[in-house]
């Protein structure tokens, strides 16, 4: 088994438009999805959500706001899962609720240092 980082990207500008009921339904979908991975004993670290605001530091002390000013999809969170192969990790990612908001999952094998 290897560890894979799942990076969830989505358009955060859509977030405030949701009603509390929609938010709650979305939380349930996420919890059921992560719970499902955990029930297969394939969850290494549930990970975290990331605050939408941030800074991007570039060479020569150039500091920009956000990453979302540049790309429509910013990183909303991450989790680490266990899988036998990249294909299996990709398969697990297919059920991710991020797709319901037009987001994406980037699957990357973690190469331990």
């Amino acid at each position: 088994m290897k560890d894979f980082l799942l990076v969830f990207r989505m358009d955060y500008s859509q977030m405030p438009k949701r009603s509390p009921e929609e938010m709650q339904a979305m939380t349930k979908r996420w919890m059921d999805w992560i719970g499902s991975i955990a029930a297969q004993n394939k969850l290494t670290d549930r990970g975290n959500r990331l605050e939408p605001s941030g800074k991007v530091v570039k060479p020569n002390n150039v500091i920009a706001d956000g990453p979302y000013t540049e790309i429509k999809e910013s990183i909303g969170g991450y989790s680490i899962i266990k899988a036998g192969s990249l294909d299996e990790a990709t398969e697990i990612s297919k059920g991710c609720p991020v797709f319901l908001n037009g987001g994406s999952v980037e699957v990357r094998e973690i190469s331990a240092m």
Partner: protein
Amino acid sequence: MHQEELIPHLFRTEYRKIVVVLCKLFGIEHIEIAEDIASDTFLAASELWGLKGLPENPVAWLYTVAKNKSKDYFKHHSIFLQKVTKEITFTAESSTQIDIDLSAKNINDSQLAMMFVVCHPCNSIEAQIGLALSLLCGFGTEEIAGAFLTNKETIYKRLQRAKQKLREEKVEIKQPSRAEIDERLPAVLMTLYLLFNEGYYSASNDAVLRKDLCLEAMRLTYLLVENEQTNKPTVNALLALMCFQSSRFDARINEHGELVLYGDQDASLWDNELIEQGKYFLDEASRGNTISKYHLEAGIACMHTKQEDSKEKWENILQLYNHLLIIEYSPVAALNRTYAFAKANGKKEAIIEAEKINLTANHLYHSLLGWLYTDVDNQKALLHLQTARQLTKTLNDKKLIADKIRKLTG
């Protein structure tokens, strides 16, 4: 109570108290002396009470005899002790000055101190549970062997080795410091949790023994709640879990000693007093920010004390299982989560979830799929139930599954 019932009863309640107080006094080096003095005390009681009749206050009599026997022991061994064993906790300058304190407070303090000793990480978890049963619960090797479904010799050797380890580590029997409590409390709670589960889920058919194990685990957990220093949210959560689980103790075993599944239980047999106590401790457990697996399991057990079969109830249980599995995976939690998932989200989605967890060697997995496929695809349901019947080892489980097959095939 007649004498022939009184001595075993007192043995159950008082032997462990005498042992633990003497152990604390003598130190870990001399556990056996403490056990011998306590045993001799009961031997004297069974001999003398038969001849002279019961003393006015049997407990006080036992304590006095135990104290005198300890003093005698020191009188005879004081020279030896002073010369040979320097590490003994108690230095007997004059045997008349020995203060053997069998007050309720010192008994509780000694038991608490001993809990942290028996849960010392130098011993395996099985050895820790064995030691707890022997030194804190006053169980004989035969009873412990019964609980572990093994023989007396195995348990005897396991206990001897475990005590030897404690001696080698020179573990002190004393009130644990704040730092020691923080460090060792998780191990203590794990031992108490497993001790309870040993009683609750044991394959042993001895229902009385099983209930005793659960009650002992609860008594020891309650000791931790009563002590200001160890009265932590996780301890309350564990006690809440034990209260909720044991509230169904009488409902989950029928008159033939067979297990009755949750859905088939007569809810009027549930113990409401224990349910209320469980709620109280769960409330206490919610102080602070920690959410342990005991909190989540207590939350699930609390939901199970509600009789209604609503979607909301199962949705709550499902989310608690999601959290529990994120903290710690276990096959049982994975199976139970899938059951709750089916109740909350429907069987069709749950079948996909169930097939992902893939615990094909577990009979409960096939029982679950048998239930999930019932009325969806009865042919598949039957196949899974037949596999479950093949995989299970206990007669009781085979019977329960055979009943389900009969219902399915009409």
